[in-house]
């Protein structure tokens, strides 16, 4: 072979450089060796993880913290299948990601070659799109398309499977290539008719609520959404993923709504006469029992994906477009409203039903997270794992800026928190990243402590250790007569020693009196990553709580005394 002809792998890496890729998160193996080899001479930094799931969540965290696609590189077979949970997580939450998998040589496809897995088939249901590269000449086009698809419209993960003979063989195609995507278009600012209809509905509202979803974060619509809320005098409520889409410390912001949302956010949504959802898909964690969801309210739905319209609720007006562009087009059409009476009612709920917790009788996770919020005041990026600690973090940590809140919503993936925080720390090295994780989920990807340590990242991992799979224990306590089954995390290691074994500084919080002092020490620690282990009470429950499949008015604000019926919703 002419030494000047690039290999497929070299061409691929050039394409990634042209896309502005800074980091690739991955783990090597036979079918991907040519690509790893080409990375040696590249400006792109390769971050070796300890598990491919870790790599996928790091790319996800990188993407959520920047809005740019995160990139993963793994080998064929088990390397590729280990990314499936990461693909699901990104797919459910519309996170841009490009996952490159090695594949066995084309001659062996379908013949059970060593480490062959039909990954394109395995992943159809969890990607926005995928490719199996059959000609090296397609590499430039496919790479461009992959990044375009991942990052535009409703973002999502794209998988590119590259057989080893393609990456190793010559690639004669030039670096630049035209995309060929006749079936793909990106909505922009909505139709004028729909905007007019929406403006008319808004102007006749007396009790409007703006529902801020992930779309607001993705399209960077924070300013427009806040302007609209102020113009209308409309309270804002946020989905789990919409946190930070509008400043949660804004006087009109009521925090998160839904299953574990604040009582005042839920009461306001329930009493509203107009709900405008901006980039939220009316997830079942928000609507509860769909047939009875906010029947008294008219609804406006702004979404970039028309497949979301009429899927859950059937709104009066649907506007297909990018949240920021739609809001910017809508603002000039909307006149100020006088909602002072409405806002007074909302404020009364805020006073009557504050988030609360006990400071005596043992250390509480809520106390730790409340103080973490007071300490960091929105300065830090917060990533979470999944479980009770996640819901408490969502309640107590007020996110003031877009892209500062990273949490697995749609998939609810345990093991997400730490690697996502690591990805974010690479993306935004000037900021602290707090990973709030449970003792259960942390252990699913804890090996990535090594990655944090090696790169000396500003990751602070707060382990809320209740020695239980707490969220499941809560359900068993409340709905299954406290018949605990498969939730006791007996055998947990000493997390402080575990961190130390990786050469990571570790702190322990045992008593309520330790909270402020230890958190400040950890916050001030600047020599690398650290772990803070909060040894919290074993049995505590997240309230408010709307059981799955119930309605907003069924919200349980405090621990009930009588027995509860089993929830009818799915989970």
């Amino acid at each position, binding site marked *: 072979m002419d030494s000047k002809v690039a290999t497929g792998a070299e061409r691929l890496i050039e394409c990634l450089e042209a896309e502005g890729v800074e980091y690739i998160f991955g783990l090597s193996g036979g079918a991907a060796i040519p690509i790893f080899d080409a990375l040696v001479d590249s400006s792109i930094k390769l971050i070796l993880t300890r598990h491919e799931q870790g790599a996928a969540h790091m790319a996800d965290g990188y993407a959520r913290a920047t809005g740019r696609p995160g990139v993963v590189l793994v080998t064929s077979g088990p390397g590729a299948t280990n990314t499936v949970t990461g693909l699901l997580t990104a797919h459910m939450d519309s996170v841009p990601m490009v996952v490159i998998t090695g594949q066995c040589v084309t001659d062996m496809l379908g013949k059970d070659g060593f480490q062959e897995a039909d990954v*394109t*088939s395995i992943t*159809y*249901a969890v990607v*926005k*799109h*995928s490719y*199996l590269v*059959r000609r090296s000449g397609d590499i430039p086009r496919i790479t461009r398309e992959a990044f375009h*698809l991942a990052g535009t*419209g*409703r973002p999502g993960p794209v998988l590119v499977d590259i057989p080893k003979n393609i990456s190793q063989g010559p690639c004669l195609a030039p670096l630049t290539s035209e995309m*060929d*995507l*006749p*079936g*793909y*278009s*990106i*909505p922009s600012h909505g139709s004028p008719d729909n905007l007019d209809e929406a403006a008319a509905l808004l102007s006749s509202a007396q009790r409007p609520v703006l529902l801020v979803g992930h779309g607001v974060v993705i399209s960077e619509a924070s300013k427009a959404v806040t302007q609209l809320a102020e113009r209308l005098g409309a309270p804002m409520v946020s989905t789990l993923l919409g946190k930070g889409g509008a400043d949660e410390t804004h006087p009109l912001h009521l925090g998160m709504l839904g299953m574990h949302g604040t009582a005042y956010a839920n009461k306001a949504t329930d009493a509203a006469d107009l709900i405008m959802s901006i980039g939220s898909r009316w997830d079942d964690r928000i609507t509860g029992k769909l047939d009875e969801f906010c029947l008294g309210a008219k609804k406006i739905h702004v979404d*970039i*994906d*028309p*497949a979301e*319209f*009429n*899927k859950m609720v059937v709104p009066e007006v649907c506007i297909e477009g990018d949240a920021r562009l739609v809001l910017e087009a809508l603002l000039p059409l909307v006149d100020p409203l006088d909602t002072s009476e409405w806002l007074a009612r909302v404020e009364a709920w805020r006073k009557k039903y504050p988030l609360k917790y006990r400071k005596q009788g043992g250390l509480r996770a809520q106390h730790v997270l409340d103080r973490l919020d007071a300490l960091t005041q929105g300065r830090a990026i917060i990533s979470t794992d999944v479980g009770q600690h996640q819901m408490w973090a969502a309640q107590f940590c007020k996110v003031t800026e877009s892209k500062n809140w990273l949490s697995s919503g749609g998939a609810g993936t345990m093991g997400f928190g730490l690697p996502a925080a690591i990805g974010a720390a690479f993306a935004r090295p000037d900021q602290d990243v707090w990973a709030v994780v449970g003792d259960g989920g942390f252990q699913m990807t804890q090996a990535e402590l090594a990655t944090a340590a090696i790169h000396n990242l500003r990751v602070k991992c707060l382990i809320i250790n209740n020695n239980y799979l707490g969220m499941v224990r809560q359900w068993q306590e409340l709905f299954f007569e406290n018949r605990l089954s498969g939730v006791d995390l007996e055998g947990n290691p000493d997390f402080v020693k575990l961190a130390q074994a990786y050469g990571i500084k570790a702190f322990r919080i045992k008593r309520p009196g330790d909270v402020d002092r230890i958190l400040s020490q950890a916050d001030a620690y600047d020599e690398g990553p650290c772990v803070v282990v909060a040894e919290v009470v074993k049995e505590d429950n997240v309230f408010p709580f709307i059981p799955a499949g119930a309605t907003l008015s069924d919200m349980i604000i405090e621990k009930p005394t009588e027995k509860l019926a089993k929830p009818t919703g799915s989970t």
Partner: protein
Amino acid sequence: MSAVVHSLPDEAQRTSDFHRISLFVKNEPGVLARVAMVFSRRGYNIESLVVSTAAREGYSRMTITSSGDPETLEQMIKQLAKLVDVVHAIDHTGDAAYETEIALIKLRCSSDERHEILQIVEHFGAKVVDFARDSLMIRIYGSSEKLDAIRDLLGKFEIAEIVRSGKILMARGRATT
């Protein structure tokens, strides 16, 4: 968002359990699997599926007849249109689209039975395409109802095999398929 074109179901379509959908797709490996998944995930049964090359090189046509909950139809059409390889997805349920289907029917028959069979064949404008000592192969095309009718009439003879192509359709006039 990949929907360059999609037409949403009207009242008649929403209330029918039986749907006729045409797709114009990029001819990429995997497109059939992706399309099939949209149906199966929503509990739709594919009654027939015809894939053929389109007039434009590199593209294919799919004609799908399917039964399932009409409530989910709008969702399904949108999910199909959203697939990156699908250029457009159109529901023709209730439209006056022209549709046709071909069937091949093999009958075992004695020479005594042939006469009546040939009468039926002639009546339906079908054609005998294979004539053997103890069997006949008949080709017929037309509406699916017509094919069902001849099948019923021939039912009194010994039907060895039936192969039906599945429906293909084309929108009339200026409407897009």
